[in-house]
């Protein structure tokens, strides 16, 4: 398998991560590293993680994304998770999993509003 990488896009003082592939463990660990390093390098104020391309979220993936938000928070960066699919939301609730370290938004537009709110504070 070639080393895959999920790209991190910089927009002013925001970072945008769009997950479009089936997440496996190595990819998650790599992404956690990349996000922390990019936040430090760019002095980012907000992190948006788009999961609209994620078809399945098991406890490992949900926890990994929540951990990314926790790491970002420790570095002074708030995270907004965007685009959780309805069937995934139902599944996560039924499993009893929470992603409480991040804000959530239905789409990118709403995510920008959330970020504007907390950067103004």
């Amino acid at each position, binding site marked *: *398998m070639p080393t895959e990488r999920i790209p991190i896009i910089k927009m002013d003082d925001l970072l945008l991560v769009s997950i*479009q592939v*089936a997440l*496996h*463990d*190595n990819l998650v660990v790599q992404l956690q590293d990349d996000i922390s390093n990019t936040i430090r390098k760019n002095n980012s104020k907000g992190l948006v993680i788009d999961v609209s391309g994620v*078809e*399945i*979220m*098991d*406890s*490992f993936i949900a*926890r990994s994304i929540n951990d990314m938000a926790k790491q970002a928070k420790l570095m002074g960066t708030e995270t907004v998770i965007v685009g959780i*699919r*309805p*069937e*995934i939301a*139902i*599944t996560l609730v*039924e*499993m*009893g*999993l929470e992603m409480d370290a991040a804000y959530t938004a239905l789409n990118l537009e709403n995510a920008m509003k959330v970020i504007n709110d907390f950067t103004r504070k």
Partner: protein
Amino acid sequence: MGNDILPKSIINNQIEKLFIDKEGLTFNILKQLLISLEEAAESFKSSAEIKSEFRNIYSMLKSQTPLQEELIQVESEYDIVAARNAGARMARDIGFGNTDAVKIATIISELARNIFLYSGSGKITITPITGLRKGLKVMACDEGPGIKDLDSVMNGTYNSERGMGMGLRGVKNLSDTFEIETKEEEGTTICIRKFLR
């Protein structure tokens, strides 16, 4: 495009190129062929059109053959993805809606991940349930270390570093029936069922 002409001619063309004996072609071989073709096509371009075309060919094939049990050996993390994809596919073939198919794929992902993390290797069997109540059965077997304190894992007082507690409880919540047998140093077998609503 006419579904009645296209898929057959495509399949025949491909088969001739592959020098496979047409008579000896089983549904499972064809399905493997289709899946790998689809995966190959996706790495060039992820297109909804490719997906729907493959779905057409696949459903044509399926309508002529009864559903069969699938066995997935779990030895690497890539097998976790393969297992949950196989589960989601079979769930949709059986007639589960999208939400239930996602739940089933999540269950399988969770079980396969436990096998990979705690035992290193094992197997997942996905079986269609026929008869009065249609559904799907998933068995996850490994010969790993077993679960020491099953009660505290299942009632929520225990959470491993990697969070197995949440995973197994989640599987139980998502399933219609849940059975687990575990013995220290011998292994774990988990069997779940999910029925059509």
